[in-house]
């Protein structure tokens, strides 16, 4: 995780206000507080994770992302972050809209279903792929939307969302050495910084 935290941290302006959707145990926000002196909140639905956030000194608010972000005003955060969450929510498109309503910029990461191993498993074996970034079986996966870099970029184009920066990572969350080389085939995790057009 550490390289990914560094990449995200590099994109964040010091002192920014940040909202982390699905903040888990608060590791990212704690890191950004220490490295970038950010303020803001994490939203999380799991009470055990909420306790961990509080122990880590991270402001965390119990919330169900599927209910939207109605408690938060337009442009009330500099960045809204969603790491490994977009593929696990039901109303993906609405949450993207909400993210860029509440935040001036959005930062998202998700597992790339276009990764070559995924393609091979489906094409040659005929099974739903199980890879390091998508370790679940089809019947117990929390991921309800699986998509590729191209799928995501097509959605951004259609919704007039600006892609400000893109990185492709491997399964250990390390940046790939030559990110422009077939990113949708070689990237295991996608990392985007988004803005409103």
């Amino acid at each position, binding site marked *: 995780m550490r390289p990914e935290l560094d990449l995200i941290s590099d994109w964040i302006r010091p002192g920014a206000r940040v909202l982390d959707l699905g903040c888990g145990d608060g590791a990212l926000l704690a890191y950004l507080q*220490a490295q970038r002196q950010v303020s803001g*909140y994490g939203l999380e639905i799991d009470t055990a994770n909420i306790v961990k*956030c509080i*122990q880590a*000194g991270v*402001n*965390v608010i119990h919330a169900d992302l599927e209910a939207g972000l109605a*408690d*938060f*005003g337009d442009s009330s955060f500099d960045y809204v972050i969603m790491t490994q969450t977009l593929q696990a929510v039901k109303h993906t498109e609405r949450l993207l809209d909400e993210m860029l309503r509440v935040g001036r910029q959005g930062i998202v990461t998700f597992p790339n279903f276009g990764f070559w191993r995924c393609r091979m498993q489906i094409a040659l074996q005929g099974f739903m792929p199980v890879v390091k970034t998508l370790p679940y079986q089809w019947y117990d996966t929390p991921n309800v939307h699986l998509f590729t870099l191209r799928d995501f970029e097509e959605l951004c184009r259609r919704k007039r969302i600006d892609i400000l920066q893109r990185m492709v990572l491997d399964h250990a969350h390390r940046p790939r050495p030559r990110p422009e080389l077939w990113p949708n085939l070689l990237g295991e995790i996608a990392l985007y910084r988004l803005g409103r057009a």
Partner: protein
Amino acid sequence: MPHTFPADSVGLITPQTAHFAEALALDCGRSLTEYDLVYETYGTLNAEHSNAVLICHALSGDHHVAGYHEDAGTRKPGWWDNCIGPGKPIDTREFFVVCCNNLGGCKGSTGPTSINPDNRKPYGPDFPIVTVKDWVRSQARLADRLGIHTWAAVIGGSLGGMQAMQWTITFPERVRHALVIAAAPRLSAQNIAFNEVARQAILSDPDFHHGHYYDFGVVPRRGLMIARMLGHITYLSDEGMRAKFGRELREGRPNFNFDTEFEVESYLRHQGRAFVDRFDANTYLLITKTLDYFDPAADFDQDLAAAFHRAQARFLVVSFTSDWRFAPARSREIVQALVRAGREVSYAEIPSDSGHDAFLMPIPLYHDTLRGYLTRVAHEVNTPAVSAHASPEGHADAA
């Protein structure tokens, strides 16, 4: 007689009384020329006087929040003993904990049962109706008396949570952290309706005598008992009651009369009867009005966020899933206003089937939440150079 107490208990406690000779102007327009506040403290105030924590009690609570009293041979500890003590979530090795019986109470602080200095008779129904703001102002005087300028934390559940909120608005610079548990930003019409039925039960008791029942040597037992029974129903949840009592018949079969047949009836009657022996009806009436009147947004054009704009404290808000008296949605109103005001806040919704009463229960996730939060508060106030603005960790990283 020697006592042995559990190692994590604050042990034997003697309440203290602070007398205030200067008049206190109240929201109702009247004033108390002089008054007493009875209080308890646990732990030790540190040299900087920065580790004091105020516990605010709810409707039927009092200053005896932890430890044991010598009298009555009772082994019953204070009402939040499971949470306060050495090694407990509100750790008395770290904090100097203060709790007072609020004005209008019946456990030693000046209230309806006290003697009115003007006529040497008990105040009774003539005791002024005090507000949460009045309480906070009286507690601030107690803080002054104890040499506490800033509370490390003000903590309360239910009506106690309302006092914690009011503290951050009335005295923004005197509260570092507010822990608001199972509370609401103001009562709903339904909440007020329950209070009104409770009041009518007391007011219509023939032994009430317009509140002057002390003169007649009686107490409105039936009214106060019904009020408490009603209150108890709202403190429990449907699922909690079902689990605890079900539809169990005490004698296994119906008797076709109005005696106590179901276990839940027996429980409620017991709770009602026990309450009559320890609580005053005029205080009960008064505090239900205090609850009804609480509305910090009213001073700010009905904008709760505007009320919190002046607050400087950081907040922890906690609710319980099965609490329908002050449901999680009411806590979310508080959180939403704090977010809009740009305040620092964490919010945890604790799974529980204990209803409103859950805030008094040692639920592991709940106590972990309090402990996690207060551990950081303790570190903040018990580390030298409390007022340093820069975070020490940040500088260490840069070095």
